């Protein structure tokens, strides 16, 4: 079912700049060339009856309901498949057309149940609507003949055509008895999602929709994106929530709180109850598409694990005590003041969240800088994309991706490095696959055979399956080929880049030691493949690089980002559509949290705290003197805690005890602190070490903005009241007031107005502007009043682009006899980050534990079979997971995800980090893997500790329930 508020014009929008005028029912209509007659009519307010057409997918022309008459043409062409032509004269309704349409509908209805009143689609069923529109009054064929509707024939025998309802998918049901075989679901799966899981099986009256080889949906290749459910014109494919709750009555546009794609959604509501989430056709990041997480996995927001009252305790071994907001806030303020009095003002700090809004993030860093009086503020981007900030700022001058997502429509060569878009950024992954199916070339640089390497109608031209930790050697080898084979875009470099830096880089990169041949053994990739990929990238037309945490989370993460920028500059692939450098952001607001001044060394807008002029602006606006030295990064905070010099931490919406490397080091640091304040939806791993718990709000309960990977600032809109009384920004404000630094914002829009006043790249940004345009990509200022889809046009943000030297320095994390394998980590489609949200949804049906993927050869050598318990040991620690034998791994490399706290993936990862930013080297850990019989000692301790913390929480809940 489509959105309850969107008007479907039947076929996709045409993009031609040339327009065509035609006559439809006597009205003159002017539309872009390539528009269908159906869409042109819709634009004129004439809605031609249709069933198989929707603007989600290309026209198909199968239902024959949208027939029209066109002057001078024979017969009755389908208006969905007929493009407009200059001077065309179209009649959309007359007696003959009405007769034909009634005949078509009569056939449809003769094989369709008549249970409209109790049908989930009732009220928004397109079949029902069309029956009404065409004036169907009788079905002469009766209902007793051959059909797909009834389980039994009228003789009481089993009906061989009947297929029972498939309710295997946790989120939607498939009821074939209601199917009209319009193929919209099949086409949505092919064209929109690109999974090709659905098919029409059989011919003629035997035709039916089938998932994979006629499997149950859950067992098929279906990735549960829901495009088919959205496309279905009847109740054949329906959300289970719609079946349970009935039709929504209003719809609110908001932004998804999962990955960095930042999809726009319509929350379709009844009162404060969400009936379903429908991706917004007008959403510029997703154009009406979604993934299983954004569309379906929102149950966490109302999960019983939500904690909605503040709690405090003296020691982490005490039971929690439920207290009022006033008590909790006073307690935090008095503890932080006490710590600062006893140990100095630098003894406390805060961590902002990439899951919270820009306004909330901005307030937390303001609290730290203005109320705490120091710069000890950091954010989870420390552990994901901090090298992107450093690397892109050094080379191009701005810490952000250069393009919008739609730019890929103009791309000829897609280079994906250390990113797994079909799992981690699925909606953009689908868009990328659309472009690849149109013929764009593909280079994948990844140690694993990710799905994109070979997926229906997509085959990578090059998969450089390098050894983990050799990214910089690979980028240098690619650049070496470009420089030594004369593939540099000399004109671009001469015009746009610093000459001295380029000359130095060219001499460096041309050295023989950087050649693919010299690096072949190190990379584990044949030199010819590297040369081929470099030639394709440099000469294949518009080339765009998409990279992820497989690039940044290394000891040389920042160097690799600079290497990527160097490649793009050397080949002139910057500053226009179709090219660029695109960091794929993990969480919804990683870009925003970085933009909002979450790093300890810089104010909002990436300006160093040591810059006196910038600091003066903030001091004037905030009315307090500000510290001019960088503060502690997250890992520095841990070290300082173990030293006894850092004792109070305010953590908003982050789970450092699960997501940060070397868990035992982190938890030791947390235990050394005196006041840890966790503000979150759930009692997460970090909260188990906390002294104060402040309940957080989900994205559904507050107003604000998120900024996605393309710098797109979109609105988050409150669709229900906060379950815990206050939105997160209000909590920070209360805390600031209690600390003695007044904040008096009445609405998040006022916070955005302050951001705009103080940040040159946000000068013209406001909630009004975003509401007016739908979303806005920063920079948004007088130079770019409506935002900036493509950056660095004509000139780089820093003026001239700067090539940076990128010496390959092998990581110190080396395999040896004791630890002969390399562990690398990542995520999968159905789960998200630490899993706090997705683990509390039916998404666990696809992934209910983290597994260790291991190549058959390595498994064989160790006597490991699929499903065995295996111990994974590094120099930092050890844990136990179940093994999954996987051909997509290369020998010598094992892989796991970190979605479940008990897996202890980060017990194994080490303190090694990126030289420039201290982003952890999550992607390379030397390990040994052996068969074992029981969980690791850490896991047993963790389970006992978690059990104890659950008891302490239960005790507080009982105490609260017993209280008068």
């Amino acid at each position, binding site marked *: 079912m489509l959105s309850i508020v969107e008007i479907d014009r039947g076929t996709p929008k045409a993009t031609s700049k040339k327009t065509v005028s035609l006559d439809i029912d006597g009205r003159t209509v002017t539309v872009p060339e390539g528009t269908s007659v159906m869409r042109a009519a819709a634009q004129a307010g004439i809605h031609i009856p249709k069933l198989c057409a929707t603007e989600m997918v290309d026209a198909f022309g199968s239902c024959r309901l949208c027939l029209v008459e066109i002057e001078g043409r024979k017969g009755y062409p389908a208006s969905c498949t007929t493009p407009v032509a200059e001077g065309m004269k179209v009649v959309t309704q007359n007696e003959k057309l009405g007769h034909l349409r009634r005949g078509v509908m009569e056939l449809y209805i003769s094989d369709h149940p008549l249970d409209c009143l109790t049908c989930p689609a009732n009220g928004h069923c397109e079949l029902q609507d069309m029956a009404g529109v065409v004036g169907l009054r009788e079905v002469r064929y009766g209902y007793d003949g051959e059909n797909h509707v009834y389980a039994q024939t009228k003789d009481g025998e089993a009906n061989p055509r009947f297929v029972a309802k498939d309710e295997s998918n946790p989120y939607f049901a498939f009821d074939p008895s209601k199917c009209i075989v319009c193929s919209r679901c099949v086409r949505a799966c092919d064209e929109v999602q690109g999974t090709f899981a659905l098919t029409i099986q059989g011919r003629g009256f035997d035709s039916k929709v089938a998932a994979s080889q006629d499997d149950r949906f859950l067992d098929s290749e279906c990735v549960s994106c829901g495009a088919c459910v959205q496309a279905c014109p009847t109740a054949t494919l329906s959300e289970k929530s719609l079946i349970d709750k009935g039709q929504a009555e209003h719809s609110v546009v908001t932004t998804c709180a999962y990955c960095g794609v930042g999809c726009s959604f319509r929350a379709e509501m009844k009162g404060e109850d969400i009936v379903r989430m429908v991706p917004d056709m007008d959403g510029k990041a997703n154009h009406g598409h979604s993934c299983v997480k954004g569309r379906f996995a929102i149950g966490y927001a109302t999960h019983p694990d939500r904690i909605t009252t503040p709690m405090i305790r003296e020691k982490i071994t005490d039971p929690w005590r439920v207290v009022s907001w006033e008590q909790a806030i006073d307690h935090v303020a008095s503890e932080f003041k006490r710590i600062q009095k006893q140990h100095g003002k*630098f003894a406390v700090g805060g961590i902002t969240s990439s899951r919270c809004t820009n306004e909330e993030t901005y307030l937390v860093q303001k609290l730290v800088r203005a109320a705490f009086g120091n710069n*000890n503020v950091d954010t989870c981007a420390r552990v994901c994309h901090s090298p992107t900030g450093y690397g892109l700022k050094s080379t191009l001058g701005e810490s952000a991706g250069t393009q919008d997502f739609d730019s890929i429509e103009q791309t000829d060569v897609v280079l994906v490095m250390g990113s797994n878009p079909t799992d981690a950024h699925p909606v953009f992954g689908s868009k990328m696959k659309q472009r690849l199916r149109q013929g764009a070339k593909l280079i994948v640089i990844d140690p694993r055979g990710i799905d994109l390497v070979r997926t229906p109608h997509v085959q990578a031209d090059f998969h450089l399956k390098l050894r983990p930790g050799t990214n910089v050697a690979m980028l240098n080898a690619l650049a070496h080929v470009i420089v030594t084979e004369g593939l540099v875009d000399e004109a671009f470099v001469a015009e746009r880049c610093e000459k001295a830096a380029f000359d*130095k880089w060219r001499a*460096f990169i041309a050295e023989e030691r950087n050649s693919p041949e010299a690096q072949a053994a190190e990379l584990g990739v044949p030199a010819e493949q590297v040369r081929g990929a470099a030639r394709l990238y440099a000469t294949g037309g518009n080339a765009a690089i998409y990279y992820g945490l497989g690039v940044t989370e290394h*000891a*040389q993460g*920042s*160097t690799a980002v600079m290497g990527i920028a160097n490649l793009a500059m050397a080949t002139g692939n910057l500053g226009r559509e179709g090219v660029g450098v695109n960091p794929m952001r993990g969480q919804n607001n990683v870009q925003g949290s970085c933009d909002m001044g979450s790093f*300890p*060394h810089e104010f909002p807008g990436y300006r*160093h705290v*040591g810059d006196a002029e910038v600091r003066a602006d903030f001091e004037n606006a905030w009315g307090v003197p500000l510290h001019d*030295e*960088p*503060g*502690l*990064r997250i890992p*520095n905070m841990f*070290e*300082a805690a*173990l*030293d006894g*010099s850092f004792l109070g931490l305010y953590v908003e919406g982050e789970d450092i005890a699960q997501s940060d490397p070397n868990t035992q080091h982190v938890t030791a640091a947390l235990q050394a602190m005196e006041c840890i304040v966790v503000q979150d939806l759930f009692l997460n791993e970090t909260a188990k070490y906390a002294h104060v718990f402040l309940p957080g709000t989900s994205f559904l309960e507050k107003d604000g903005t998120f900024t996605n990977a393309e710098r797109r600032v979109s609105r988050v809109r409150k669709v229900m009241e906060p379950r815990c009384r206050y939105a997160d920004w209000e909590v920070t404000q209360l805390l600031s007031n209690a600390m003695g630094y007044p904040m008096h914002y009445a609405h998040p829009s006022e916070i955005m107005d302050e951001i705009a006043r103080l940040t040159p790249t946000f000068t013209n940004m406001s909630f009004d502007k975003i509401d007016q345009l739908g979303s806005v990509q920063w920079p948004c200022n007088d130079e770019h009043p409506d935002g900036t889809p493509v950056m660095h046009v004509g000139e780089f943000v820093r003026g001239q682009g700067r090539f940076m*030297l*990128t*010496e390959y*320095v092998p990581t110190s994390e080396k395999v040896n006899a004791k630890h002969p394998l390399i562990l690398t980590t990542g995520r999968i489609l159905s789960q998200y980050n630490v899993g706090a949200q997705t683990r509390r949804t039916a998404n666990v049906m696809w992934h209910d534990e983290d597994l260790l993927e291991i190549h058959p050869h390595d498994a064989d050598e160790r006597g490991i079979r699929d499903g065995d318990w295996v111990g994974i040991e590094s120099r930092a620690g050890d844990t136990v997971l179940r093994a999954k034998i996987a051909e997509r791994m290369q020998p010598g490399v094992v892989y796991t995800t970190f979605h479940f706290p008990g897996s202890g993936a980060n017990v194994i990862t080490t*303190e090694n*980090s990126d*030289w*420039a*930013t*201290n982003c952890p080297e999550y992607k390379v850990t030397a390990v040994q893997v052996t068969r074992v019989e029981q969980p690791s000692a850490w896991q047993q301790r963790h389970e006992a500790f978690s059990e104890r913390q659950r008891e302490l929480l239960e005790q507080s809940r009982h105490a609260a329930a017993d209280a008068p």
Partner: protein
Amino acid sequence: MNIEHLTTMVNDISHYFAAEPDHDAAVQGIADHLRKFWDPVMRKQILAHLEAGGEGLEPLSREAVERLGVMQKSEAAA
């Protein structure tokens, strides 16, 4: 803070700058990086470590930390 970690961090930074053909620019690059991104307490600790012999600091790191000390002294004097 764990001085071994701080030492490793400085060495990691110098490994990046080691590729710089102009030796003085490399030393300055490292010192600037420390000045710009390290908390003052961390800088104080690494300077004290150098004073105490600087065990574990590689030659380029050592020069850079020395340079950092000079920079900070002149800043303080200014």
